[in-house]
């Protein structure tokens, strides 16, 4: 069953952007600090919230880059 005529859809280099999201989100030493604060919010909190937005943008980029 492995005769696929057009195998191009399997993997895309763009998926590496997902890896970036993973590594940063899952590496607490990177963001487990109080300073610098933003509007009084410790780095730990605002960085992770910012990373939600960055990740959404990266995922959108993958979506558009891999859309046929």
């Amino acid at each position, binding site marked *: 069953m492995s005769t696929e005529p057009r195998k191009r859809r399997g993997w895309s280099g763009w998926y590496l952007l997902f890896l970036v999201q993973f590594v940063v989100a*899952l590496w607490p030493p990177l963001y487990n600090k109080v300073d610098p604060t933003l*509007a009084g*919010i410790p780095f730990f909190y605002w960085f*992770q919230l910012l990373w939600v*937005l960055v990740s959404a943008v990266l995922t959108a980029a993958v*979506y558009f880059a891999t859309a046929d």
Partner: protein
Amino acid sequence: MQEVNWVALIIFIALFGLISWLGFAAARWRKGDLELLHEWGLGGRRFGTVVTWFLIGGDVYTAYTFIAVPALAYGQGAIAFFAVPYTIIVYPILFLVFRRLWHVCHRHGYITAGDFVRGRFDNRWLALAVAVTGIVATMPYIALQLVGIQVLIGGLGISGTGLAGDLPLLIAFVVLAAFTYSSGLRAPASIAIVKDILIYITALTAIIVIPIQLGGFAKIFAAVPAAKLILATPPPGSTGAYSGYATLAFGSALALFLYPHSLTGILSASSGRAIRRNAAMLPGYSFMLGLLAMLGLLAIAAGVDKLPEFARGFDQFKGNFAVPALLLHSFPSWFVGIAFAAIGIGALVPAAIMSIAAANLYTRNIHREFFNRNPTNKQESRMAKWVSLIVKAGALVFILEVPTKYAIQLQLLGGIWIIQTLPSVMLGAYTRWFNSWALLAGWAVGTYAGTSMAYANKLANSYPLQAFGHTFPGYIALYTVALNLVVALVLTPIFNAISSDRARDATRAADYTGD
């Protein structure tokens, strides 16, 4: 002593009335023949990108999440923020793995993970394991949604013992059961839209207004004890809170879309493209969840637990009362009514979807497989409707009769159990390399090991793994699914040497891709 908050109560009831009407009216939305299981149980797979966004958002960010995550932040501080990396990494998984599952399920008419496993591996016992795990993991989750409603009702000042105390919950339950029965998945899908708008209003207002009242974020975080502010630096010889935090986020992310209710939300989408778009749009909810987690810290700063009017609430509901108390303390009654309704309706949406998902599993992978092999369409959908009632009634009895802490512990075990279906479902979406009996053995070993590790650790979700003279505290679900996978990897060549089942696969490679 807290008195009944009439203004809030009336708004709360009015909004509940509105969404109940919506739930019943939903039967006529994108009309389909509700005597067919995929129409009742998947909304006819007709939801586009936007409805899917509301539905999955309303489905996975439950009322219990909105109460329990801030409660964890209130009680233990920074660790509660694991919910943020958790919901960051869950969406690439959705994008990659679950769009493949959407395609294959769409092509073959599968409506549950059990259906997929049955088709992929042609082993009804493996499908049974997946179905039973799904149902067992879902039941306490439904119960916790009812706990969420209980906390809110308590917050509105309604209390009592015996029937009078339980009456509001009973009413909410009857309404929920009735519209789920009559409208199927269309009911929570339509209600989710209203609920999510209310939740966004509540969360944004709370995170702007309360910090102003409390004198700014700098002052709020200054009031949070240093031990709760950020994660503790790991002691020598251990990865400490860091590995605890990361494994909890990673394991929870892997488990999330294995839950039957999440998969039901995914499979009801009208296209694979809608799934991928949502992977980029759903982080909107993650951001809000992060804001809500910070509400727990605001509750510390506001000192709501010291206020006499909330003493009874904290006594009864512990940390889960932090957010309701904070809202009651900070807002006028009419806004409290809206906020509580938002969270309360937020319990009905996932509870409805969970009961539908459990009913689909029972109907397809247990009843049809083992009791009545050739049901008519009508029999099948009737069965599912009845099972959805039974599942909810079970959850209700559980909540009324058993202390809440058992529901919480069972839900925690549920996460450890559901992740054991990962090799069959998520890896199964990519490869047919595994032997189905090896997968079943891996599932059994993972489930047993996870349960005993949890018990050995007094039902905490973290286990201090010892290796190479180091300690790696981490989420039990993640450790045991790794063990599960090793068992499946080792046994597959052995079992296949005896008798290979690899040719038995109802799906083809091309079934997993498209649009």
